[in-house]
């Protein structure tokens, strides 16, 4: 759903004044793109749902408490999603480490467990989704942001804290890798 910059800024202003109505509007506008973005980064729909809810809660806390000027709400949401996914993997890795020996034998780390789950559901997946999931996280997120979420290069640069030039280079490489993987899978 295209949102004008003006509309976004007004929502942000109202959110800063702790207006739940504005929060609900922001949720309605961005929940699907954020969910999709997280979905490709985690293994299960359940995780994607939990993390998406957490993103919005974090945004509410951040916007209502910070004194910093927020330039771009959309970029802020994607950044928050990214950081939460990173935290999520860190936490699960720690959790796995403290778990008893027996379970550790079965599951080395959460990523592996997710991968096992992935294999179950792989039949339902489209070829291109499988390719995306095989890609390096760095490449995957840039492809998702550019072609699925349709962010501009400068917006992506903002989300990833990179220069526009490096975003272009990264995107070019990502498509190349994507093509290679697709060819490999088809063979």
């Amino acid at each position, binding site marked *: 759903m295209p949102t004008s*910059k*003006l509309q976004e*800024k*007004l929502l942000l*202003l*109202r959110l800063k*004044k*702790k*207006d*739940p109505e504005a*929060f*609900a509007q922001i*949720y*309605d506008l961005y*929940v*699907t793109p954020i*969910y*999709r973005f997280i*979905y*490709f980064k985690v293994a299960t*729909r359940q995780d*994607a*749902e939990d993390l*998406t*809810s957490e993103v*919005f*809660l974090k945004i*509410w806390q951040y916007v*209502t408490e910070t004194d910093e000027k927020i330039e771009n709400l959309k970029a802020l949401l994607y950044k928050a999603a990214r950081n939460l996914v990173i935290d999520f993997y860190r936490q699960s890795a720690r959790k796995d480490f403290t778990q008893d020996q027996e379970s550790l034998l079965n599951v080395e780390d959460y990523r592996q467990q997710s991968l096992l789950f992935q294999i179950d559901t792989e039949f339902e997946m*489209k*070829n*291109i*989704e499988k390719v*995306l999931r095989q890609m390096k996280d760095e490449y995957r997120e840039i*492809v998702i942001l550019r*072609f*699925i979420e349709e962010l501009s290069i400068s917006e992506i640069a903002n989300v990833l804290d990179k220069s526009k030039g490096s975003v272009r280079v990264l995107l070019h490489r990502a*498509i190349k890798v*994507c*093509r290679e993987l*697709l060819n490999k899978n088809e063979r």
Partner: protein
Amino acid sequence: MKDSIIQEIKGLKKEIQPRSEWLTLSRDILLQQINSKNQYQSVGVGLKGYFTVLAQTLSQRLVFEPAFIMLLVLGVFLGSSLTINAAFYSLPGETLYPLKLTLEKTHMALVTGDENKVELKIEFAQKRVAELDKIIAQVNVDPQQKKKNIEAVVKEFKNNVVAVNDHLNKIKEADQNIATTEDKETTLRMALTVSSKTEEMAKSVDKTVEGLSDAEKLGVEQMVAEAVQSAQETSLSAQQLVAEANQATEEQEPNQDNGVIDGAETPVEPDQTKTDSTEEGDALEASIIQILTPEEQDAAEIEPSTNSSVK
């Protein structure tokens, strides 16, 4: 190949959608959570907020887009011309009335030459008379407000008329140094117009105020009387100027028949009444024939008829 991959990736957008029941459930839970954390007081964004957002947006590259600039220019142009147009029809007591007066002042500042200034002032004074008519015709207006408006417009009328008088005096002084007949004729014509128009306006104001109820008249009567008197004074000043011009012409052309009536030459007392000005009108009629050059014999038929409106 590259495009087909991108198309395939784009296709995923429709495939990957959150469950609708989760969407609503999560929305409700989140709203509950934030409401329990914050005791929200309904605060509007306010004008300041909208302004901040607008300023932020403008500070971005939007400013440099030609289409935006065009729209802005068009908006400002259209907005200002509409405002000026609306101001043109405004009456005292309305928001745009001070703008109308300012515009008139600006117009005045742009005009050069005492003659032109006098003409413009007369035009403005006529506008004031028209406004007075409209105000008096207004119904369903608070009587107090109506009185205030009448006072404002009469005061403005008086100012205009007094300014005309000042200009006439200036012209009178300047005229003594002018030798050419042509210049004198221009002054004379201008003085004639001023004289007739101020008389007309004085009568019109008098007549309009007659239409007021006694209660309404009570407060404004004094002021109106003063304004009418100023108008009459100006009219007389103009006639005086005519008479002086005549005298000068007469001195230049002593061979011509002396038709000037003595009364026109003597300075007129400021507190003279309208009956005096009628006498002045007669003097004027005679004097007009006097100043005409032989080439303008035909026009002589027209001039006195113009002058009759003075009476």
